């Protein structure tokens, strides 16, 4: 007789319904799985048999055929153990009637019949809900995360026995729905601007970047605090909204990295891939496309330390993601689009050895070496960066005499204060654009024209500057966006001369030698 169990497979940003059909028939005892199972699914055979036996059931000594339908999509992952095991029982034991019509089953089995958590549960659950599934039976550890999906009843089970008893109606499991939202433990961000000596210019720049989601590039010698400054950036970013949390959680889940991030974290993600990272790891890819670092940094910060050391191909691949806020990956099996609205934070040294301009003339790099080093960050990417700044160690701010130290302590900038400013500025943008998650940094040219027009005095200044500093059209648009954010930080309706003038200090400067 044939039993059909509902399960799912992750697919792109969501999931697909999968029917696990099990036939237990006459013939020599055998156990085969068909329907494009990947290695991990094939191995389910070896896990399911002892799990059933150790869970207190018999394993039928008959000819068992499992078909995974639709049969043309490749099935990966270990979450099909539970539906296969339940399917075998349902097909072989007519004395164990189970209600399998409207509930999806997901879970990995251990040999003793315990249910173990699986990767990618959030996107899978969201996908199933979208396809009309309202109930899901799943491992206990995964339940809280799946419960983030609206309208989905999640039944957490400890082991196979409990799952079977529940399906037969012999025991009750109280469903989890919409819970877990409030569970996040408050954790103070590890880095705070109050840790930094001086560097007021850079902190101002980071505040502007955070308020308007402007990408930026810091240039400075090693040890000048570039990385520390950028690591402090998350401390002034506002919390994510609930739908954003879901979106981000979903991407982590898809990438098989939900352990990297607390599922309900309100904090925007911060990713800093190493410079040896490949283009695929950065933007996403693989035979079954997975989100890359750009998508993992969605709604948060993507920090490229030592940016010129990244492979050329990796940097070039950033174009579309930075421009469009999403990345489309085409592979043999599927063409998928992942969102990636991130704040690009890049840092580099002023020259290959890093000591250019430091006292004592320690830098021995030649002019052409420096030029080559700088050109490694191609136009393709610097054209998409809004803010540029050179930083240097603020030596005066170190080892102050005791009485000055105290004075300095009071003047230190605290992240909490800046975060209030950033939140206000973002609030104003939200009001203006009437769209969640759209900030000045993401505006398209026509939107810049519509929203960021400077008032007449400021316009004259901008035109004069554009001429004097020979700025391109794109550079002028970038400047208008930055000026708009500075105005937002100040709570002004119009982009005034003062805002444009400040924004001009963060323009890209050609190195004059």
């Amino acid at each position, binding site marked *: 007789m044939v039993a059909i169990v509902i399960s799912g497979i992750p697919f792109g940003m969501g999931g697909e319904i999968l029917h696990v059909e099990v036939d237990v028939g006459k013939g020599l005892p055998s156990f085969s799985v068909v329907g494009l199972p990947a290695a991990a699914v094939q191995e389910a055979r070896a896990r399911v048999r002892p799990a059933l036996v150790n869970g207190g059931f018999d394993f039928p000594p008959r000819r068992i055929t499992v078909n995974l339908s639709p049969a043309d999509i490749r099935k990966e992952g270990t979450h099909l153990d539970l539906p296969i095991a339940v399917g075998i029982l349902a097909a072989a034991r007519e004395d164990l009637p189970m209600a399998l019509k409207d509930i999806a089953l997901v879970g990995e089995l251990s040999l003793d019949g315990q249910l173990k958590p699986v990767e990618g549960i959030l996107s899978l659950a969201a996908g199933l809900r979208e396809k009309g599934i309202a109930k899901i039976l799943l491992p206990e550890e995964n339940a809280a995360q799946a419960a983030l999906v609206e309208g989905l009843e999640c039944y957490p089970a400890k082991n196979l026995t409990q799952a079977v008893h529940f399906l037969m109606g012999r025991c009750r499991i109280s469903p989890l729905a919409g819970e877990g939202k409030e569970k996040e433990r408050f954790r103070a961000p590890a880095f705070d601007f109050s840790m930094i000596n*001086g*560097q*007021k*210019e850079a902190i*101002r720049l980071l505040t502007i970047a955070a308020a308007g989601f402007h990408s930026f590039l810091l*240039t*400075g010698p090693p040890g000048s605090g570039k990385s520390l400054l950028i690591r402090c950036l998350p401390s002034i970013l506002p919390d994510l909204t609930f739908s954003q949390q879901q979106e981000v959680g979903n991407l982590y889940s898809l990438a098989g990295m939900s352990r990297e991030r607390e599922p309900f974290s309100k904090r925007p993600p911060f990713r800093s891939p190493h410079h040896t990272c490949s283009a695929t790891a950065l933007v996403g890819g693989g035979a079954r496309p997975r989100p890359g670092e750009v998508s993992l940094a969605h709604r948060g910060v993507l920090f490229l330390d030592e940016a010129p050391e990244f492979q050329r191909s990796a940097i070039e691949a950033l174009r579309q993601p930075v421009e469009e806020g999403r990345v489309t990956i085409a592979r043999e099996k599927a063409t998928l689009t992942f969102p990636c609205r991130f704040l690009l934070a890049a840092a580099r040294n*002023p020259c290959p050895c890093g000591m*250019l*301009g430091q006292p*004592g*003339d320690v*830098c021995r790099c030649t*002019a*052409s070496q420096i*030029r080559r080093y700088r050109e490694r960050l191609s136009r393709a990417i610097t054209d998409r960066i809004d803010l540029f*700044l*050179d*930083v*240097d160690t*603020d030596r*005066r701010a170190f080892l102050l005499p005791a009485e000055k130290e105290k004075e300095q302590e009071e003047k230190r900038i605290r992240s909490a204060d800046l975060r209030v400013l950033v939140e206000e500025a973002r609030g104003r943008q939200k009001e203006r654009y009437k769209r969640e998650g759209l900030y000045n940094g993401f505006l398209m040219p026509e939107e810049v024209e519509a929203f960021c027009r400077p008032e007449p005095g400021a316009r004259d*200044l901008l035109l*004069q*500057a554009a001429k*004097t500093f020979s700025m391109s059209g794109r550079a002028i648009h970038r400047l208008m966006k930055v000026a708009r954010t*500075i105005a937002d930080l100040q709570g002004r309706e119009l982009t005034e001369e*003062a805002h444009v*003038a*400040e924004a*001009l*200090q963060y323009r890209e*400067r050609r190195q*004059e*030698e």
Partner: protein
Amino acid sequence: MTEKKETFIKEIGPYEMWLSDHGGRYIRRILSLMKREEMDPKGLFHSGFFPGWKRELKTYEKAFEDMKRLGIGAVGLWEEAYPALLREIYDPPFLLYYRGKLIEKEEICFGIVGTRRATDYGKWAARRLGELLGGNGINVVSGMAFGIDAQAHRGALEAGGRTTAVLGSGPGLLTPAANRSLGERILESGGCVLSECLPLAPGLAYHYPRRNRIISGLCRGVAVVEAGDRSGAAITADMALEQGRDVYALPGNITSPVSLGTNRLIKEGATPLVSLDSVLWEGAPEAAKGAFEKKKEREIKGLSREEGMVYAALEGQGADTAQKLSLLTGFPLSRIQQILTVLELKGMVLKNRNKIIIAK
């Protein structure tokens, strides 16, 4: 004598270029032979005095074509238009290839040379010097290299003055390539780019020390802004001394490696640039000097009170950061940045990495 030289060029055609490329040794020999009228120069070539000349002939025919195509002129040692001061040196180039407007007879030239790895201080001084000289009708001569040279040219261009770049490559290539746009600006402004190398000769390392003798040779005086202990700029200064030119050196911090050369020059008797206008030596028109000072005053007067405060704070320090300016003036950082933009637009300050430098 003049007649003899003219016959020489008419009869021999392009061969003399071959001579100039092979350095002064042959040229001096020829000149001395010619002076004593012991030998007909034409016979000199045909006699096989210079082995391999036939092979070279093609190269020079091509050079002529290049000159026509690129609008490059050439002036010979025997010609009236040849820079007079240069002719006086020990080993003047036999031919000068040039683009733009060659130095005129009554024009006064002054050289500004220095290291390629200049500090902010050196760059500031070079630019100011270029401006000061250019603004006073003096032709600023330098080598268009990175650092000091480029700043000197830029200063002269900004003051609307004449400037001449002496290259280590042929004038058809504006080298170094990264300064090509600077070279173009020099030509557009009515300046000059010249060299003793063939029009499209690459800038080889050994050309440069010889190039330096032309810089000092063209000039009444040479200012060395920053130079390492044994740098090309120091060599230029030595040559200038040999050629009997005035040598000025910018005193520097004794801990700065790029001031070692200039400080040593001062010890050896070069005039220290105690103030930048000390380069405007006696010969410079006094009226022009006064005009420059007035211009400067006027410019400072054109600033608003706040701009003036920031500018004054900068002037006290020479080079500094926006953060320090905010501390000194009491303005918030964002206000400082706004004022800096205005000052930058007025051409009063420059930003180099995180340091702000006075430009005027």
